[in-house]
Every structure is written in C-alpha cells, then in structure tokens.
C-alpha cells in the first residue's frame, strides 16, 4: 500500500481492502453482528463512528459495506450505500433523498425513473417531505431497505442542516424503519459536535481510539509480511510500543512512519507525504484560523517543539506587545485547547504538566508547512522517529549504509533525499564519518537548484563541531580536511582544531590560504596566531589583506607580540599604529614599561592616557591598587575626587576606599555599605560580573554576616553571587555560612563540599577558621549528618578540625559510641569549648 492510498482507502479494490483489514476487527464484528441480527422491522439504532483523522473510520465503513454485499442473507434485501468524503453537495435532507432515489435507479435498474419523479414535487413547500415519502414508498414496493455508510457525516451533512431539518431528521431517525445510518465523523482539531442536538441520542457512538500496543504490533506484523527488509519483530517489541505512543496509535500516521522508516527504497513515501500535506493544507489551515489569536500562537510554540512542553516554557516563548504572556493565561488557554481536543496533557507527578498536539499528523503538517525552507525544525518529527527507531548505533549505521546505497543507485527521489539528510543531520549519535558520506552521496544526486538547500559547507562545520564535542578531534579534523570549497570559517575552525591536536605546524599553511579576512574574523585570526605563538603569521596573513586598515593591522600585530611577551616588537608595532593615527594603547605600553622596570614611565603613560580619556579612571585606580605604598593611596584618594558622580564605578571605589581604611563597625563603615549597595545597582546597569563584582559581593556578604545579619538582604546577596564569573574558595565558604543561616542546608553543603573549598580550607589557615565556623553553625542547626558527610568525604578534615569532629561525635554518641572513646583527654577542653560555642550560636543565629 503506498502512502497515497493511506489517504484514500476507497481507491483500494474490494479484495485489497478486505485483505488489508487487520485492525479494528472487534469494532467491525460488533457493528456487523448488529446489522446481521436486525430485520429492520422497527427502526434500528444508528451508529456514529468517531475518531481523529487516520483512525480507520473510512476503512471500517467500507469493510462493513463490502461484508453486506458479500452476505447472501443480507444482500437480497439490504442495499448498502456509501457516501464518501467528496460528497460535498450532500448538505440538506432533500438532497439526501434525491441522491438515494438516484442510487435506487441504479440499483433497481429503473433508468432514472425514480429520480425523475421528484420533478413533480418542485416548488412545493414540503418538497423534502414529499421526496422522503416517495423514497419510502419505492423502498417498500421493492421490499428493500437501505443502510447508508456516510463518511464525514458530521461535517458534511449534520452541520449544514437547518434547524427545522434537524428536527425532521430526529422524527425520521425515530420512526423510519426503511433506512439505517452508519456515519463516521472526524474530530479534526476541535470536537465540534453539539451533542445537545437531540438527534445524537439515536446514534450509538463508536469511538475509535488510537491503537494500543498489541494492535500496533499486529498491524506491523501484517505490514511485514510483504516487506523485503524484515525486522525482528520480537526484538523490536519495545520500539513498536514506543511507536504506538509517539503516533498516538493513529493507523495512518503509523503506516506512514513505518513506510518512511523501513520501506522507502526510493524516497517515494516521503514524496507522497508531501503531496498529501498539500492536499490537507486547506483543511488544517482553516482549523488553525478558527482558533483565537493567542491560542494560535500557543499552538505554534507547541507544534514547533514537537515534544511535550510545559505551560511555563510556552509562556517564555510568547511575547505580546513586548510583554511576556502570563503562565496563568497560557494555562487557561491550554485548558480550552485541551477541551477542544487540539492538544493533550501529559500528566506528571508535579503540578507542571506537559502539553503536545493531540493529532501527531497535524503536528507533522505544521512543521513541514510552517517552517521556512531552511528551517531545521521542518523535519524535527522525522529526526525524532529515526532517532528512536534506530536507537542503537549499529542499527542506525546499517540504516545509513542502506540509504547511501540507495542514493548511489541513482533512482532516489532528490527532494526526499534532501529531507532525510536534514532529518539525519540532527541526530547526535550518528557516526559522523558515515553521516559525512551520506551528505556527500545526497549532494551528488541533487540538481543545481537543490544543492544550495543542503547547505553543505555549514553541514560540514556542524559535523566537525559535533565530532569535536564528542571528543573525537581527529575525526573533526578529517571532516574539515575533506571539505571541498572551504571558506574562511572552515579554515579558522580547522586551525583551532590543529592547535588543540598539537599540530601547530599545520596552522600556518592553512591560515595562509585564507581569503581576505574581514573585521568579523580579524580577532579570531589574532587569537589563533597568539595560540600558535606565531605573531609573524599574523604579519604574513595581513600582508596582502585589503579589507583592514594598516594602523589596525599594526595594533593587532602589536597585541599579538605583546601576548607572547615579545615586548620590543610589540612596542615597535604599537608605535607604528600610533603613527598611523590609531589611539595610543596606553595600558599595554604602560605595562611594557612596567615590565622593563620603568615605573615612572609606566605611571606617566597611565596618567596621560587618563588625561587623554583613553584610560578610564577605574583603570587608573586599579593601577594604583597594585601599589600598596602610602603615596599611591593618596593618589587614589585624589583620583576619587576626580571621579565624576555619574561614573559607574563612583560608588564602588568610594565604598571600597572607606571599607579598606575605616574601622570595622565604625559609623563611617555603614557609609561604605551604602556606597557598595548603590554600586551593585550601577554594576547591573553595565553588567559588570568580573572580579570587581566578586569583590563587591564578598564585601557586602562579609558585612551582612559579621555586622548586620539581615536575612532578606542575605538571601538576595547569595542569589546575586550565582552571577559572579569568579567565586574563590573564601567566598564559597561565606556563601555556605550564609545559606546555613537561612536554613538552606543543601545549598550550603554544595558550596562547602566542593573540592577547591576542602583543599583550601585544609591548606590555608585563614580559610580554615571560616570553614570551621560554618561547620559549627551546621551543628548549631542540628545538621549533624551534613557535617558528618563532610568529614567522611575527606578524612584529612578529621585531623585538621579534630576538636570539631569530636564535638560532632559527642553529639552523635548514641549512633557512634566507639568514636568518642578514641578521643584523647587533651581534647576534652577544646571540645567542650566548641560545644559551648555551638550553644551560643544557636541563640545568635536563631
């Protein structure tokens, strides 16, 4: 069965359809046995088969029809009629009677007599009633009954009836014993049925839910029978189960995915899928357009995510007039969408549920038709299916090898090849070498228009980067070396990989082949020549460069020499750059002088740079901070006066100055904190997170813990600490202490148990004291076992913080009675002191 016939079961011949009917057999038997056992003396119950698209409704209707045609007991009196999805003109009751009369003319060979009879009723107000009564008369006269198999019964027919027709229909359904209806109705996105319509109660609803695991297995087993590429079904049981879940058990999606994954020898399944997507576009589009705008955007986010996603994540991706959508609002819409069957909720243990589009095929359509042509999300669904089906490397490799063979055979559909290549490109576990071959094989069969779509250069880069991330540097280099038509990016990345692989000698020849480097890559080039310790390379590459100004070239070359410590050459080029009109690199020149031992010149350069506006006052302050003499401190003070109030470092340096010079706990000291708290706001504005930020936070933390102990501020400071780029051990210990004060012991323990903290606390006395204090606070807060954990993690701690350890053992003596006994007598006093201190702390930090 091709993918196309999946969408039109009516195009299958009767024996073909009967032969391929393997699931839904219970539904079939149930309905058929009802039909078979009914003589239709009285009005019989009607059936309405409901389910998403692709659940097998049409096939079930046709199967029933064929069975009636094949049953000698039935076919002499019961005439089955099938109205397919294309019966667009069937929108009124009278039209239904006309069509049935027309059908009877065929079935009874009456050459249009019955249909033509309705001519006489034209223009009568009760035309419909007359047609109906005539139809019944014809049926009774011929001793026939009708059973109508009506596909898309809800949307095509019921929804178009006028109020009065609906009530008529109810009367007829209730009392007519000549006609019986088996309808099928799709729940596409929203279940539009208004069950308050009274005629629905005459229908027995048969809901076709997704196939369960067992049924999916049966279906695939049957599909396998004709397949050349047989899979071991018993081994694949787990996968088939997952496939049932991923497709929602929708037969059509299952079969489509099956064919694309396992049966597609020439890409025709994917190509057919494209055709079908086009056919279905108007329907799905109109369904989307029926949704309110905000729901449309929510559906967009969910669809593009493919996997289930939480309300919070959805909210984070939607902005309205520059504002984020509230999660509460998103949840309300989600509830509505769920009620309308657009999405389904995946329950989790927590309050955060996940949501995905209920109809997986609709999701496929959405991705394929709403992503732009180069949008990788377009084939996300395919990626996911491939990924799970070939979940072991071996299976995936052999699939790829097969696919490469097929590509090479020359008959593979190029558009499908492109889709598959895109899908495979995103699977992380694929062997990158094979993937590389696959890309080459795909490229070979694409026509000139399609080639750019594969975006080969970018793919190669991605492949190489992935290999690198996977830890396979050699393979990354191999892929890049094999790239035809390299552009600068390839050469840069390749050179960087050479550096990592210690093939420094290969960097120079590679970079010499660069095309004219532009400003964008200029910096990377400079870095590479520094890494290669070859500033001369920069000179050579830039030699013939036309895009970059000479002065800037010299500046960069100067920097490169500066970085590798060749100060003379650096100075040389810097001066050339200055000659060419570039701004004097005061800081570097100052550092060169400093290195040469010429402090005076160094300071001169900084000061004149400052005067020229090229050196920031904060840089100058930093310069003086390295000089601990009184003179520098005085200069610092003076400079501070120069610092304008609106300078972002104004508050920081003022605070720091007081903090360093004033006595702890003096009145002025509080001023320092005011400055520093303002500095924090300043830093946020210009996003300072470097060492200055660390310095700032640690001072504030110190003050909070030692002086003010304001828990609310403490909490926010600790949160801010997360942003710091640099967090030295002493600060981690502070943080641990702070978190313990707040009662967040887990967090405290994370900081305290980090390797660097343990190591430094053991080695550095200054840190050890604070570390010990934190453990004491643990004990004051009854976190005995966290403390014990630390001692167990590192045995040396027991030795270094012996009194504390035994204090802990005293507290835990019921659990570890033997441990306290080991304690030497000389420790009695220290341990008692500690236990007392713990008692004090209980009050201090209550």
């Amino acid at each position, binding site marked *: 069965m091709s993918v196309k016939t999946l969408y039109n079961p009516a195009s299958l011949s009767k024996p073909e359809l009967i032969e391929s009917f393997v699931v839904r057999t219970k539904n079939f038997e149930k309905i058929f046995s009802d039909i078979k056992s009914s003589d239709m*003396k009285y009005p019989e119950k009607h059936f309405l088969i409901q389910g998403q698209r692709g659940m097998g409704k049409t096939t079930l209707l046709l199967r029933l029809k064929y069975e009636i045609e094949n049953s000698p007991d039935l076919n002499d009196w019961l005439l089955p009629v099938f109205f397919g999805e294309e019966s667009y003109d069937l929108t009124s009751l009278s039209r239904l009677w006309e069509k049935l009369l027309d059908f009877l003319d065929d079935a009874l060979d009456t050459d249009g007599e019955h249909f033509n*009879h309705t001519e006489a009723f034209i223009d009568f107000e009760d035309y419909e009633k007359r047609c109906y009564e005539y139809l019944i008369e014809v049926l009774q006269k011929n001793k026939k009954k009708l059973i109508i198999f009506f596909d898309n019964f809800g949307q095509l027919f019921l929804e178009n009836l006028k109020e009065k027709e609906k*009530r*008529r229909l109810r009367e007829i359904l*209730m009392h007519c014993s000549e006609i019986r209806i088996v309808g099928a109705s799709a729940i596409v996105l929203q279940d539009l049925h208004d*069950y308050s319509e009274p005629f629905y*109660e005459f229908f027995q609803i048969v*809901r076709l839910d997704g196939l369960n695991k067992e049924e999916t297995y049966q279906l695939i087993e049957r599909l396998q029978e004709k397949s050349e590429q047989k899979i071991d079904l018993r081994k694949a049981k787990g996968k088939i189960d997952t496939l049932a879940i991923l497709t929602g058990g929708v037969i059509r999606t299952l079969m489509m995915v099956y064919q694309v994954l396992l049966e597609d020898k020439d890409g025709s399944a994917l190509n057919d899928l494209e055709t079908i997507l086009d056919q279905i576009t108007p329907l799905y589009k109109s369904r989307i357009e029926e949704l309110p705008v905000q729901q449309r955007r929510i559906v967009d986010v969910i669809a593009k995510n493919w996997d289930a996603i939480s309300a919070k994540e959805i909210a984070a991706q939607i902005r309205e007039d520059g504002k984020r959508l509230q999660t509460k609002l998103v949840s309300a819409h989600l509830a509505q969408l769920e009620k309308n069957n657009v999405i389904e909720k995946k329950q989790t243990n927590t309050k955060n549920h996940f949501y995905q589009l209920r109809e997986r095929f609709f999701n496929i359509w959405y991705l394929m038709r709403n992503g732009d042509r180069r949008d990788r999300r377009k084939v996300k669904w395919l990626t996911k299916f491939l990924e799970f089906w070939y979940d072991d490397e071996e299976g995936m490799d052999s699939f790829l090898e097969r696919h490469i063979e097929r590509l090479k055979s020359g008959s593979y559909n190029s558009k499908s090849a492109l889709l598959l290549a895109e899908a495979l490109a995103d699977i992380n576990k694929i062997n990158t070498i094979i993937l590389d071959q696959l890309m080459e094989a795909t490229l070979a069969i694409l026509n000139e228009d399609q080639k750019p779509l594969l975006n080969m250069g970018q793919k190669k880069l991605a492949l190489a980067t992935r290999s690198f991330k996977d830890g396979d540097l050699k393979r990354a280099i191999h892929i890049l070396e094999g790239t035809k038509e390299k552009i600068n990016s390839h050469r840069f990345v390749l050179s960087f990989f050479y550096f990592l692989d210690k093939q420094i000698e290969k960097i120079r020849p590679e970079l010499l082949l660069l095309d004219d480097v532009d400003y964008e890559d200029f910096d990377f080039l400079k870095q590479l020549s520094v890494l290669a310790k070859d500033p001369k390379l920069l000179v050579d590459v830039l030699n013939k460069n036309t895009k970059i100004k000479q002065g800037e070239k010299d500046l960069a070359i100067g920097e490169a020499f500066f970085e590798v410590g060749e100060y003379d050459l650096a100075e040389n080029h810097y001066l050339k750059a200055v000659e060419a009109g570039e701004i004097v690199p005061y800081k570097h020149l100052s550092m060169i002088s400093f290195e040469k031992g010429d402090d005076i010149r160094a300071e001169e350069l900084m000061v004149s740079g400052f005067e020229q506006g090229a050196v920031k006052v904060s840089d100058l302050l930093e310069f003086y901070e390295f000089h601990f003499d009184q003179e520098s401190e005085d200069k610092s003070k003076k400079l501070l006066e120069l610092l304008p109030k609106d300078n972002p470092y104004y508050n920081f340096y003022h605070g720091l100055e007081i903090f360093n010079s004033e006595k702890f706990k003096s009145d002025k000291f509080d001023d320092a904190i005011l400055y520093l708290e303002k500095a924090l706001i300043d830093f946020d504005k210009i996003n300072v997170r470097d060492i200055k930020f660390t310095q700032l936070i640690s001072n504030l933390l110190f003050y909070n813990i030692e002086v003010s102990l304001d828990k609310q501020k403490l909490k926010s400071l600790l949160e801010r600490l997360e942003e710091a780029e640099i967090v030295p051990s002493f600060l981690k210990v502070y943080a641990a202490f702070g978190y313990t004060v707040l009662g967040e012991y887990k967090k405290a323990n994370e900081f305290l148990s980090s390797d660097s903290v343990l190591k430094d606390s053991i080695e550095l006395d200054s840190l050890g004291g604070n570390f010990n204090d934190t453990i004491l606070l643990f004990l004051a807060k009854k976190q005995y076992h966290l403390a014990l954990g630390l001692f167990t993690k590192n045995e040396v701690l027991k030795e270094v913080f012996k009194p504390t350890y035994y204090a802990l053992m005293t507290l835990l003596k019921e659990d570890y009675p033997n441990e306290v006994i080991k304690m030497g007598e000389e420790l009695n006093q220290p341990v008692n002191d500690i236990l007392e201190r713990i008692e004090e702390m209980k009050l201090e930090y209550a």
Partner: protein
Amino acid sequence: MKNSLGNPARGAAFYPRESEVRKIYRVLDKGTSIYLSAPRRVGKTSILKHIEEFPQEGYFFVYVITESVDSENEFFKVIFEALIRSEAIGKLSKLYDTIKGGIESVLGRVKTVYHVEIREKGETDYFQILTDLFENIKPEFGHVVILIDEFPQTIQNILNSDGNEAAEHFIQKNRELRHHRHVLDKIHFVYTGSLSLFPMVEKVTELTAVNDLRTVEVAPLSLVEAQDFLTKLLEYDKVSLSVPLIRYVLEKMGWLIPFHLQLIAQEIVDVFEASEGGEITEKSIDQAFDQIVHLRNKPQFEPYFARLSALFKGNEYNFVFDVLEFIALQETISIDKILDFGVKHSVEETRRIMDILEGDGYLFKSDEKFYRYTSPILQMWCRKHICK
C-alpha cells in the same frame, strides 16, 4: 431482549409497561384526553408506539410526531395526513361503508395523485378539513385516539417563529378542537413530549387552556420489573448475573428507568467483553458505572442539560446550574442554601424553578428540607462533565 439504547424501544425490544398502559386506558375509557407526563427518556414514546401497534379492542390509535412543525396549519395537516394514511382509518372505512363516502368527499377537496397536491385557490384550512373528517366518524364504531408526540416542542417552535400570539392561538385552537362538537366524546388526544407541557403553556398563556387534560404519569420500573428487564437485556449479549449482583446494580442506580438500565447493561456487557469472559464481580459493576460517564455517552446525557438553556435564561439559568453543581458535589442541597443561591443570582421564584427541576425528573425532595438527584448516574455525569 435486544438493547435498543437511544431509540424508542419497539417490538421485542419493548419491555411491557403494563401498569402504565392500564392507566392510560383507564382515563381514555372515561372519555378524557391525556397529558402523558414523565421526564425525558423514561419511555413515553415507546409506550405510545406500543399501544398504537397493539390496541385494545375498540380503540384506533394514530401516532404523530410534530417536533419539526412550526405552524398551526402544518400541525393540523400532519394530523390529517397521518389519519387518512393510517390503518385505523383504513380499518374503519373497510368495516363501515357509511363513513367511506364521507371520507372520500373530504379527500376530494385535497386531491392527491402520487403525493402531488393540486391545490385550490388560497391555503387549505386543515383545521376545517380535519373536523370535517371527524364528522364522518361515528362514536359507535370505537374510540379514535390521536397520539401527539413532542407537542410542547411544537408550541416552542411556533413561539420562536411567529411569536406569543400565534403560540397562544395554537394552544387555544387545540382546546377548541378537543371541544368541537364533532370531536367531543368521539376523538381523544394523548399529548406528550420531552419538554414539560405546563411550564411551556404558562409561558404563553393561562394554564386553564389545558385544564381539560388529565395528567398520567409514567413511573419508573418497579424493582421486580427492573430486575427482569436487566436480566433479559444482558441475556441477549450472553451475560448472566446472579440475583445478588443484579440487586447490587439496581441499588446503585436508584432511579429505575428503562433508559438507565439499558445504559448500564451496555457498559456491563462492555466490561464483560473486555475481560474476555472473566467473572463479573461487584468490582466489574463499579467499573461499568464509572464507564457510563465516559464521553462516548455524551449524546445520551448532553440533551438533559442542554434543554435547561431553553427553559431558563439569564439569572435563572445560572441559578439552576449553581444548584445542580452544588448537589452533584455535595449530594444534597438544603432550602436555606437554595435561598442563598437565589439571593446570589437575584432569582425570586426559586420555588417555581425547583418544581420544574423536580417535575422534569432531575431532582427529588428527600424530605421536607433537602433535594437530591433522582439518579446517581445523572449526578455522576454532572460531577464529571458539567461541574467546573
């Protein structure tokens, strides 16, 4: 016995409601027309179709359903056409040549050739024609009874399309027909429908317009009947339940109307089939009850609640749903709480509304102070699908 869930039960699927049928004849014997009252889905239509098909000696029944009818003249036309096509008239005219001529002369005014009516100038007055037809029927031939289903709906239709005056006229015209000299003591009517008649009439005119009708209530099945009915339904699907289990089901159901018995039978069969022949226990019965409120039965329940929106509007509607939801969750509601809801929704006539809900079979008063659901099944549905 085949489960005819959804359709009016007919033939072998009809469970004989002997006491209800006897009640109807008792009133008819006295020469009174009837309003057959019962909440929806209790089996009114099935009873009417049954007595039409199997009439007592001396009775001729003609059944019409006028759900789609939305004008007075059409209403009488439907009755007229049903009459002349009915076996009743066929039998009468065969039996008694005297009326044959009379009927033919009436028919002469509405020539029907293969349903093509050649109309005279102007619109045919079917009320007139109908009374002319009745004139030819002699009381000694027997009782002719016209069974009119969905009559209140017809009033509603006329009200919707032509307004209050037309609806009032329609009700009065029916009264006039019943009291017509050619009709009185000779032709009788049984009205019924899934909307309650009296609130509908009250909406349009005075209740006196129908005070000549005798109300006959259709009661639920008795315990013995229900037990018998359920056993027979299950037998058809080859499921057999011990008497204690059947009693267990019936106790859980509370309100023993055929429709709910059909529903639970369907679900028990479903559970039985899913268990592939396993033994049915109280647990499986509980499961069947849980399944009743599955969405697939929506078409069976939704009209129960949807019709309330036709009966009540605005504040009254909100009041009704607050009450229904409250009872769904709390089992009962006290009069005090009802009054509280009344204040909340500015509804003063709480008593009238509660009477409708009771009369239409949603609720019953368990003692003077509390209302509860007539049926735990309805309560379950409301709790699962209506409550927010």
